[in-house]
């Protein structure tokens, strides 16, 4: 366990408060966060320069000196190397080493190698440093962007497309990473080089130097002007790409309306037109870009032209010394490269600045939630009590239409209030304002004497529960989706298991800090048990199971539990009981003479009810390696098939299957369900197989080409005799498959571990559902009602062992799918309610949260929740603000608010309102 000395308090202080406004200039943004590093990298670059130039210079000295023999005119001549003299004087500090020609060669070559290494190391260090700098900045930028999304005012989300936001955060800022390391170093460095070369030319000849400088200035002025068009195009390009990803996201989310309305071609055409526009923008961009390049190159070559013509003219006229001209031209050769690179750098700068500002524009939103209101708070939040005071509330939507006007309300927080009103009556808006999902346009809302808008989210988010009608749930396990509402701050640090972990963790923490991310650690335990009224994980699970029963989800969860695929290591208790249940199942089948109903998985015998593939691998695929029809093709599987000689046998069988299929199905219409039932291949593949049969039907395995082998070899893998009844299984083949099964299992390579969960009669199978683990075999076909009987038996055994709660706990592992879509709408709504009540709020806001349930269920749950809120279970009572879908239900509450056309028209006890004979009386009548 590793913590900074200050512990949690310090971590909370390190939590960065991201400013609302984004820095408009990328350069300033980079400089603000990396100035020290930029200076450092510049220093290192400068430090690397001397060795760099020495390395360039050395080859010349090697050639001129030892190799060509300058200074070694006689065989025993020697020279002094590395003589050091005091600069600007003749005082010799070090006489140097006296070396012969061979010795000099050896020394210079050794120096060359050393310099090459040193240069390489410099380069390595500089590039790594720059890369890390860029990645840190990228991380900071992305973090800050999403931080702002978390604080966007809710109405903003009506204008946002999720996929556009994600493409901005992910793709559009990506090129910035590569630029950040070079943002300052490169221009300084290249500029320095260019100025040096220019200075040298100027010293040689003022005239020619002036010419060269003039052209560079023309480039510096002219090119950026040309670039402006480019910038405009770059903006368009980026916007159109973003919109494209927005549209693609929309297609995915709206696929059901595409399919049910035959609008796929409308979508295609829209897509094609969009891609066409993008193409034209990009094409124009390239044209302009390469035109500018052309101008640039032209200007670069224009200078030598001037040198040759003007310089030559001056030299011929005798105004210029030829030696000077040659020196100038030589120096100029060094000039274009830094200038060209500088121009490239500038191009990149323009690109990323455009990208950056296009992104920041979208993220600089007005009325963002104050970062302070979202400060992490580890402390226990006091219960809300006192009153809700709403006075003169008015709410307008984006277009200025009034949703609510002049609504005033005063009531105790723990009052049970029903809100009645049709769509657009203002009822839903009213509770959404109290839940802070819609901002009030004017008026004041106070809770317990404090303005709602100034309350930290730590208070409202923990003490107020909210369930809406949409029931959207992010993808996770069922349990995690419920616990989600209990994760507000890291409460208990996680424990590093080993020194390596500790080390890694320390590194992660340092990097987090350097990138300005939040130090709150994801791997800590964030679950606030106390606020759920429990003290540990087990109690919480029990509590959640109770709540699921409370909303009548316990049977659903039991069913999910039977289907759940649970890792035995995560839930060892389940695995043990299920193994026990498996044994009981065996005995029970035996006792009741139903043994034939299930063909168990036995490593030593062929399971007739399973396919050949399953018999061979004898397990369930976990990863993709052995899943589906491609399993036969896996290199390891192929090797085993080959070694055991099973490949030839299965190939022959494949030919037989194709033949039988052809014989039986040739005249069958392609939409006949039999094709699906047999599932060897799709009807349109029939022709392929027919062709392959006529060409290779008699070829035999050894002579068959690879693709033909694959074609036929894959067929038997999905064959099972009881299902297909082609009469192709022989005792010999069964034995061969069982033998191959053993070979496959015995030589199974370590690196494929985790790709298959093998069937083992004495072990829980991690890739099979709980129910399949109990049955541990295939239900026999051909016995009437066998699946129903077996299912009933499984349920009976599990119930008899008192495992129903354990099974429900397994159900909590169920993956609810993207957006919770693997659950029904009603189930999602019930889960939303559990989410809202598990944190034991002081006020529960229900915004038509039961709409998806049948009326009887709605009434049952409503009655239950009211009883719970009254404190019937010895718990603290809590308040309810409930927009009811059926007005009659409002009579069960203490108080009713009736909304009509944006106004609060009636407010009082349900009985009184009914007696008074106003709106409410009419609605419920």
């Amino acid at each position, binding site marked *: 366990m590793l913590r900074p000395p200050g512990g949690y308090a310090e971590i909370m202080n390190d939590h960065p408060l991201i400013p609302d406004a984004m820095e408009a200039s990328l350069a300033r943004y980079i400089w603000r966060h990396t100035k020290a590093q930029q200076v450092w990298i510049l220093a290192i670059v400068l430090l690397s320069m001397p060795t760099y130039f020495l390395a360039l210079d050395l080859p010349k000295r090697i050639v001129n000196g030892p190799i060509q023999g300058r200074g070694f005119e006689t065989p025993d001549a020697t020279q002094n190397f590395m003589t050091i003299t005091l600069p600007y004087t003749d005082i010799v500090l070090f006489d140097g080493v006296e070396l012969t020609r061979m010795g000099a060669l050896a020394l210079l070559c050794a120096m060359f190698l050393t310099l090459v290494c040193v240069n390489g190391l410099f380069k390595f260090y500089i590039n790594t440093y720059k890369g890390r700098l860029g990645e840190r900045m990228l991380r900071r930028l992305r973090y800050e962007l999403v931080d702002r999304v978390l604080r966007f005012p809710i109405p903003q989300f009506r204008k946002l497309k999720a996929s556009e936001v994600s493409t901005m955060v992910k793709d559009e800022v990506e090129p910035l990473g590569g630029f950040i390391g070079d943002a300052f170093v490169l221009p300084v460095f290249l500029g320095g080089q260019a100025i040096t070369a220019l200075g040298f030319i100027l010293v040689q000849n003022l005239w020619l130097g002036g010419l060269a400088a003039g052209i560079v200035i023309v480039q510096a002025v002219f090119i950026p002007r040309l670039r402006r068009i480019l910038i405009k195009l770059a903006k368009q390009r980026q916007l159109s790409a973003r919109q494209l990803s927005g549209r693609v996201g929309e297609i995915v989310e709206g696929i059901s309306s595409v399919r049910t309305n035959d609008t796929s071609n409308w979508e295609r055409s829209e897509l094609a037109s969009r891609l066409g526009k993008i193409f034209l923008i990009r094409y124009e961009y390239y044209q302009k870009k390469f035109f500018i390049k052309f101008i640039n190159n032209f200007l670069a070559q224009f200078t030598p032209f001037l040198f040759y013509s003007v310089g030559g003219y001056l030299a011929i006229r005798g105004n210029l010394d030829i030696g000077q001209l040659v020196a100038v031209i030589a120096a100029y050769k060094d000039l274009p490269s830094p200038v060209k690179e500088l121009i490239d750098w500038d191009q990149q700068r323009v690109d990323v600045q455009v990208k950056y500002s296009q992104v920041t524009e979208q993220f600089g939103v007005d009325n963002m939630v104050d970062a302070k209101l979202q400060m992490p708070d580890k402390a226990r939040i006091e219960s809300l009590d006192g009153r809700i005071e709403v006075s003169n509330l008015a709410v307008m939507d984006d277009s200025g239409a009034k949703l609510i006007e002049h609504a005033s309300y005063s009531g105790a927080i723990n009052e049970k209030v029903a809100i009645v009103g049709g769509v657009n009556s203002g009822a839903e808006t009213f509770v959404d304002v109290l839940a802070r999902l819609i901002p009030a346009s004017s008026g004041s809302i106070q809770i317990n004497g404090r303005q709602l808008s100034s309350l930290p989210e730590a208070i409202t988010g923990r003490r107020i529960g909210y369930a809406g009608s949409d029931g959207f749930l992010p993808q996770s396990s069922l349990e995690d989706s419920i616990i989600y509402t209990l994760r507000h701050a890291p409460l208990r640090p996680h424990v590093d298991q080993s020194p390596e972990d500790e080390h890694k963790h320390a590194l992660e923490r340092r990097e987090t800090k350097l990138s300005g991310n939040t130090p709150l650690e994801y791997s800590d335990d964030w679950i606030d048990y106390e606020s759920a009224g429990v003290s540990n994980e087990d109690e919480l699970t029990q509590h959640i199971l109770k709540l699921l029963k409370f909303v009548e989800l316990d049977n659903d969860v039991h069913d999910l539990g039977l289907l759940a695929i649970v890792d035995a290591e995560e839930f060892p208790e389940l695995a043990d009981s299920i193994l026990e249940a498996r044994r009981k199942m065996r005995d029970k089948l035996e006792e009741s003479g139903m043994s034939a109903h299930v063909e168990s998985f036995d490593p030593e015998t062929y399971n007739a009810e399973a396919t050949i593939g399953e018999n061979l691998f004898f397990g369930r695929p976990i990863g993709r390696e052995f899943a589906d029809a491609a399993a036969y093709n896996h290199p390891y599987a192929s090797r085993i098939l080959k070694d055991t000689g099973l490949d030839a046998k299965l190939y022959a069988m494949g030919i037989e299957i194709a033949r039988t299929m052809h014989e039986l199905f040739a005249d069958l219409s392609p939409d006949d369900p039999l094709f699906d039932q047999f599932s060897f291949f799709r009807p349109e593949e029939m022709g392929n197989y027919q062709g392959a049969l006529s060409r290779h039907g008699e070829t035999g395995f050894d002579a068959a080409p690879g693709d033909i082998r694959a074609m036929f070899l894959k067929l038997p893998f999905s064959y099972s005799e009881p299902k297909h*009844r082609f009469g192709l299984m022989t005792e010999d083949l069964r034995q061969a498959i069982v033998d191959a099964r053993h070979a496959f299992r015995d030589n199974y390579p370590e690196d494929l571990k985790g790709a298959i969960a093998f069937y083992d009669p004495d072990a829980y199978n991690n890739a099979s559902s709980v129910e399949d683990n109990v049955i541990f075999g295939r239900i026999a076909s051909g*016995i*009437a009602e066998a699946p129903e009987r077996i299912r009933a038996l499984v349920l009976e055994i599990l119930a008899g062992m008192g495992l129903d709660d354990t099974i429900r706990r397994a159900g909590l592992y169920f993956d609810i799918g993207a957006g919770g879509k693997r659950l029904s709408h009603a189930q999602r709504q019930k889960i939303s309610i559990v989410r809202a009540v598990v944190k034991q709020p002081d006020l529960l806001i229900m915004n038509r949260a039961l709409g998806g349930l049948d009326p009887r269920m709605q009434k049952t749950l409503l009655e239950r929740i009211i009883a719970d809120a009254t404190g019937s279970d010895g718990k603290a009572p809590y308040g309810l603000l409930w927009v009811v879908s059926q007005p009659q239900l409002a009579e069960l509450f203490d108080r009713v608010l009736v909304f009509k056309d944006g106004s609060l028209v009636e407010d009082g006890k349900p009985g009184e309102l009914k007696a008074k004979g106003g709106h409410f009386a009419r609605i419920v009548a």
Partner: protein
Amino acid sequence: MSSIMDEVDLLRRVPLFSQIDTAKLKLLALASERLRYAPGQVVMRQGDTGDAAFVIINGEAEVVIHNAHEEQVVAHLGRNDIVGEIAILCDVPRTATIRASGDLDVLKITKDRFIRLLSDFPAVSIGVMRVLADRLARTTQELYSAQAELAAKG
């Protein structure tokens, strides 16, 4: 485990299918499910919706009608009989319960497959019509005698 050819032989012996050629019989056999029922087990239940017809391959079954409180065995079925086709053809609930009276082997033909069979083979359609017509004639006869009996009782 019986192979497809055994089933084809069995099917061929059912008069209804006797005129179908071997290839089509194979298809029919493949498409249908062979099921074994233990004595007393219910093949279909009166009032349920029907999704399949059954051909008895082996053994015997009884046709049971449930009234308000009692049940009455109205007929016995044996090898090669076809049953359950009414619910398929006219989308009405099962008119009677079929129960295995001993070990019973049946071939279950799904609604979809059965209708395909009828449209592909006029001979089968006629065969089914004949079965239905027979039953209708018998029922009419029984109704007639029942009415006569009632009239006699006064």
